C-alpha cells in the first residue's frame, strides 16, 4: 500500500454505516453526482437488492454494508451501462470485489465507466445466503456483531481468506472504516473523479491515514497467510483429473455458478449452445468407450472451460459458491486457479482501469520457461511436476 496517500476524515458519531450515508447525502446535495447505486433492504424486509437512488428519503434506509450479496454489484452496473454511459452521473457504492469485477468488465467492454464514480469501502465480508435466509433476524444480529469486530468466521468461506478487502487501487474513492470506530470514516480519493467529489463537499485532505493503513496492512498479512494455507490444502484435494472430478461430483450441471458470476458475461455460453448438443449415436459411442456416460454429460468440461475463460479475471467474490444448489466449493477452487494464473501474468485485478488484460497483451519475453521446455532447449525443465 502506498504511503503518500491522503484522506479526509468525516465524523460518523460512532455509526460507520450512517457515516457513509451522510457522506453520500452531502455529495448528492452538492451535485457531485446525480444518483447513487447501492444496496438496500427490499420492501418485504427479508433480503437486499441494489437500488438506484436519487431521493434523500430512500437513501436514508440504504445499507452500504448489507449482510449478504444476492447479486454481484458489477453485474448491476453492467446492466445499466452496457448500452452506453447515459446522462446521469452515478456513484456506485460497492465492496472491493465488486469494484474489481467492475474494472474487469470495463476492460471487457461490458461497462462504461465514464459517468460512473466507483466508491469502495473496507469490507467485513458477507454471509452465505443460505445461512442468512434460515433466520434473517438472527442473520442481521450475527452480521452486525461480526462486522464490528472484523470477525470473518460467519462470512462466506472466500471472505474469510480475502486479502483484497480494502482499497483496490482502480476505484475513484475509497472509504476507510477499519480501525476507525471512534473517529469516523476516512475518505481517500484514488482518482481525479474522487478528488473532485471531495472538493465539491468542501472536504480537504490531510496526512491522517497512517493508522488506518497500518490496520489494513496487518489484516492483509493475516489474510494472505490464511489464503495461502487454504489454497495449499485445497490443491492436494483437487490435484489431477480424478480428484477434480470428485470435487465436482455432486454437480447437477445447472450452470448457476456461471449465471451469477460477474465475469461470465457471454450472452450465450458456449456450454449452453448448440455446439454442445450431440447426436444420439454420439452419446452411445461415448457410453461404450467409458463404461457408462454420466448424465448430464460434459459436466467437468464445463467447469474447466469456464475456468479457462474467466480465471484471469476471477475476483474471488464467492458468488458462484453461494448460488450453487449442491454446495460445491466452486469459488475456492476457482480462487486457487485464479490466484496462480494471475500471478503468472503478474496481473493484479482492479489495480488500474488502464492496465490491459493479460490475454490481449503480447510480450515477447513472456513464459520463456514454458516455451523452452516444449522446444527441448532446456532439458533442466523437463519432467518437472509443476
Amino acid at each position, binding site marked *: 500500500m502506498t504511503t503518500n496517500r491522503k484522506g479526509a476524515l468525516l465524523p460518523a458519531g460512532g455509526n460507520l454505516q450512517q457515516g457513509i450515508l451522510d457522506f453520500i447525502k452531502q455529495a448528492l446535495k452538492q451535485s457531485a453526482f446525480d444518483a447513487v447505486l447501492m444496496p438496500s433492504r*427490499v420492501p418485504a424486509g427479508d433480503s437486499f437488492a*441494489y437500488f438506484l437512488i436519487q*431521493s434523500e428519503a430512500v437513501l436514508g434506509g440504504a445499507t452500504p454494508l448489507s449482510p449478504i450479496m444476492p447479486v454481484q454489484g458489477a453485474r448491476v452496473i453492467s446492466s445499466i451501462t452496457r448500452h452506453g454511459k447515459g446522462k*446521469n452521473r452515478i456513484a456506485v457504492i460497492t465492496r472491493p470485489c465488486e469494484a474489481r469485477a467492475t474494472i474487469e468488465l470495463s476492460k471487457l467492454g461490458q461497462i462504461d465507466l465514464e459517468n460512473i464514480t466507483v466508491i469502495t469501502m473496507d469490507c467485513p465480508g458477507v454471509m452465505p445466503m443460505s445461512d442468512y435466509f434460515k433466520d434473517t433476524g438472527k442473520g442481521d444480529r450475527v452480521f452486525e456483531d461480526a462486522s464490528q469486530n472484523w470477525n470473518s468466521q460467519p462470512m462466506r468461506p472466500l471472505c474469510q481468506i480475502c486479502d483484497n478487502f480494502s482499497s483496490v487501487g482502480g476505484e475513484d474513492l475509497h472509504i476507510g472504516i477499519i480501525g476507525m470506530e471512534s473517529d469516523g470514516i476516512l475518505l481517500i480519493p484514488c482518482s481525479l473523479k474522487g478528488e473532485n467529489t471531495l472538493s465539491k463537499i468542501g472536504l480537504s485532505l490531510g496526512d491522517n491515514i497512517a493508522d488506518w493503513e497500518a490496520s489494513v496492512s496487518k489484516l492483509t498479512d493475516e489474510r494472505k497467510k490464511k489464503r495461502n494455507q487454504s489454497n495449499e490444502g485445497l490443491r492436494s484435494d483437487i490435484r489431477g483429473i480424478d480428484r477434480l472430478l*470428485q470435487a465436482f461430483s455432486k454437480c447437477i450441471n445447472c450452470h448457476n455458478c456461471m449465471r451469477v458470476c460477474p465475469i461470465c458475461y457471454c450472452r450465450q455460453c458456449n456450454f449452453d449452445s448448440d455446439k454442445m448438443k450431440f447426436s444420439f449415436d454420439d452419446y452411445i459411442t461415448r*457410453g461404450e468407450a467409458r463404461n457408462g456416460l454420466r448424465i448430464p454429460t460434459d459436466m467437468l468440461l464445463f467447469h474447466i472451460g469456464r475456468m479457462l475463460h474467466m480465471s484471469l479475471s476471477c475476483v474471488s467474490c464467492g458468488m458462484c459458491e453461494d448460488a450453487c444448489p449442491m454446495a460445491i466449493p466452486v469459488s475456492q477452487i476457482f480462487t486457487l486457479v485464479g490466484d496462480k494464473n494471475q500471478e503468472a501474468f503478474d496481473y493484479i485485478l482492479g489495480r488500474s482501469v488502464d492496465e490491459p488484460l493479460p490475454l490481449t497483451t503480447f510480450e515477447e519475453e513472456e513464459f520463456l520457461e514454458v516455451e523452452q521446455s516444449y522446444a527441448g532447449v532446456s532439458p533442466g525443465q523437463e519432467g518437472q511436476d509443476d
Partner: protein
Amino acid sequence: MRESLPDRRARMTKVLSIDKSAEEGLKELLKFLLENGKVKGVIALRKMGEDGTISYSLITSPEDVGSTMPLFPLMPVNLAKQLSRLTLLESATEPIAVVMRPCELRAFIELVKRTQGSLENILFISSTCGGVYPLKMAVEGNIEESLPEYWKGLGKGELIPNTRLACQACQYFVPYTADITVSLLSNKEIDKETTLLLNTEKAEAIVEGISGKFSERDLDTAKIEQIRSKRKTEKEKLSDEPELKNLGIDDITKTFSRCIGCRNCSKVCPACYCHVCFFETETSQYEPVYYERELQKTGCVNMLSDTIYYHLVRLFHVSTSCTACGQCADACPADIPLWAISLKMGESVQKTFDYLPGKDIEEGLPITTFLPEEFAGVV
C-alpha cells in the same frame, strides 16, 4: 380431469414377478435386456465411482448394471430434460431402456408434444413412486441412513418423512405411459419380490425369455386411492402455509422478495425448454434512458424488480405442462417454496383446460387446441 382412456386391452395387466427385492429384480431385468441385445443402452441412476455420488448414467454393458441404483430416492436432475437433449437432434437409433419417475415421464411426454424429443425406440420403466429426498439431503450426505425408513414407508404406502414437499403433495404417483411399472407403493413384498406390470405389448414382447413368474393382475385401486387421499390431505396442509395460501399480488411480492434473479428455476425445469429465455434476450435489457426515466418518476429504481415479472411470465409459460416435480425449489439458492407456487398455478390452469400434462401423448396441448365450445362464460 378427462376420463381415463378406455383400457388398451380388455384383460388384466400381465405381471412378471422376480424372486428378488424390487431394486435387485429391476436390475435383473435391465441386465437381461442388455445381455440379450434387447436394448443397446440403459439410462438409470447409478452410484458413481469417484465418491459414491448418485447420478444418472447411460450404460451399455451388462457388467455395469451392478453399480446402478434405479430406484434410489433422489432426482439429481429431471431426466425428462436430459432425455430431451439425447433425442433432440435425432430419435434413438437403437432401442434403450430408461428408468424414470412418473413426474419425469410426464414431463418428457410434454416435451415430445412440443417437439423437443422423441419416444421412438425407448422402453419406459417407471414405478409407483414414493417420492425423492431433497437435493439438500444429498449435499449433507444423509440419504443412505434414511433408506431403511424409505423402503418401509414405500411398502406400507405411507407418506415418507423428509421427502420433497412436492412429493408429499403429489397425486400422480402412478405412471400413465410407462411400458413397465414397478409396483412399490403399498406392496408389502418389495423386499422379497419384484412385481413388474407389463403395460404394453412392447413390454410383454421384450421380456420374453426372462426367468420369472408370469401372472395377470392390476394395481390395487383401493390402496392407490388410500394413498392419494393421504397425499391430498398433506397437499392441503402444506399449501395452507401463510405465504402460500392466497398468492395474491401482495403475497407473491413477499414470497419472491428473496429472489436473486439467477433464473436457476427455469434452467432445471423440464417444461422450460426455450433455447434462449425471453428474459435473457435483448428485449429484456434496458438502455440507460430507461433508468433515467424511472428515476425521474419515483426517485429510486429497484435493480432486482424484474424478478416478479419473470416469475409470473414463467408460471404463465409452464403452467399447462408443469408436472410439479419440485426441481425448481430444490435448485433455488434463496430457498423460495417454488414447488408450491408452481403446483398451485399448474393445478388451477390444468383444471381449467381439463388437462393433465403428460398423461397421454395423443392429447393435444391445451394452448394449441381450439375448441369452439371452450370458456363460453368468458367469451
